[in-house]
C-alpha cells in the first residue's frame, strides 16, 4: 500500500509563469513516454514477475515514477498559475484552456489524452524488462527535447534531475534483466516463460 509524503522528491520553484512551454512539457505528465505511463507500466508489470529482485525493482521504480509525476505536474501548475486571458491567447493555449482552464490534465504535447495503450504488460519477464529499458530511453529523449526548447533555469533544474533519473532507472533495469537471466536457461532464455510455465 501507499502513503503520501507532503514534499516533492526534488524542489520545483518557478518564478515566471510561461504557458507556452507548459504546452509541451505536459507530455511528461500524460504523454506516451510520460511519468503517468511509466508508473503504471512498472506497477502493473509487478504482478506476473516471478523473481523477488525484479518485484522489488518494479515496485521501487514504479513508486519513484509517482514522485516524478507529481514533480512534472507541479511544473505545469507553476507555469500556468495566474495566467491572464491575453497570456493564454499569446501562448496559443486556448484549446487546452477551454477544456481544462488552468487544471493539470494528463495529456500528450499534441493534445491527445493519456492512453494505457502507451505501455504494455506482456506477462513475460524478459519482454517486460526490455520494454522498461526502452521506456526509460524514450523518456530520456523526451527530456532532451524539452531541454532544447527551454531557457528558464527554474524549469531546467528539475527537468535535468528527471532526465538523470531516466538514465539511472535504465541502468537498474539492465541489472534486473541480467539478474533474471542468471536464473534462466542460458542456452535458450526463450525456452519458457518463467512467469507462466514454472509452477511452484
Amino acid at each position, binding site marked *: *500500500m501507499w502513503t503520501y509524503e507532503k514534499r516533492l522528491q526534488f524542489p520545483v520553484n518557478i518564478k515566471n509563469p510561461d504557458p507556452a512551454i507548459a504546452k509541451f512539457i505536459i507530455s511528461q505528465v500524460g504523454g506516451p513516454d510520460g511519468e503517468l505511463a511509466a508508473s503504471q507500466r512498472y506497477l502493473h508489470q*509487478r*504482478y506476473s514477475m516471478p523473481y*523477488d*529482485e525484479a*518485484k*522489488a525493482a518494479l*515496485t521501487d521504480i514504479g513508486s519513484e515514477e509517482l514522485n516524478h509525476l507529481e514533480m512534472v505536474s507541479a511544473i505545469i501548475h507553476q507555469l500556468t498559475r495566474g495566467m491572464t486571458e491575453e497570456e493564454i491567447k499569446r501562448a496559443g493555449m486556448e484549446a487546452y484552456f477551454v477544456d481544462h482552464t488552468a487544471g493539470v490534465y494528463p495529456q500528450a504535447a499534441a493534445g491527445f489524452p493519456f492512453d494505457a495503450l502507451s505501455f504494455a504488460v506482456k506477462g513475460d519477464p524478459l519482454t517486460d524488462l526490455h520494454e522498461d529499458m526502452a521506456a526509460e530511453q524514450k523518456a530520456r529523449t523526451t527530456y532532451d527535447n524539452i531541454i532544447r526548447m527551454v531557457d528558464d533555469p527554474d524549469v531546467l533544474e528539475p527537468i535535468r534531475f528527471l532526465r538523470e533519473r531516466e538514465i539511472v532507472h535504465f541502468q537498474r533495469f539492465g541489472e534486473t534483466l541480467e539478474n533474471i537471466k542468471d536464473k534462466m536457461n542460458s542456452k535458450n532464455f526463450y525456452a519458457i516463460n518463467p512467469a507462466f510455465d514454472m509452477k511452484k
Partner: protein
Amino acid sequence: MNEKIMLLRKIQQLHFMMIEAGLFLDNQNRCCEALADFEKYKKLYLEAKAEYEKCYGPLSYEGVNGKCEDWSWVQGPWPWEGEC
C-alpha cells in the same frame, strides 16, 4: 492465524483508524475528539509497526535494518501474493 499475521492485522486496523480520523479532520480540522483519536491510534500504530519490523522484516524503506548482511527489502512474499 499465526503471530505475524495477527500483528499485521493489528497494523492494518490501526493505520485504517488513522486514515479514517485523518479524512474526517481534513474538513473538520478543529475537532478535538477526532484529533485525540488520531493521536491515540498513531501511537499504537507506530509501536505495532516497530515491533513487526523488528521481528518480521521491513514494511517500508525506513524499516530496513541496514546492519544485516542482506538487503532484506527484496524478500518475499510480496503483499499481492496472498500470503500476507
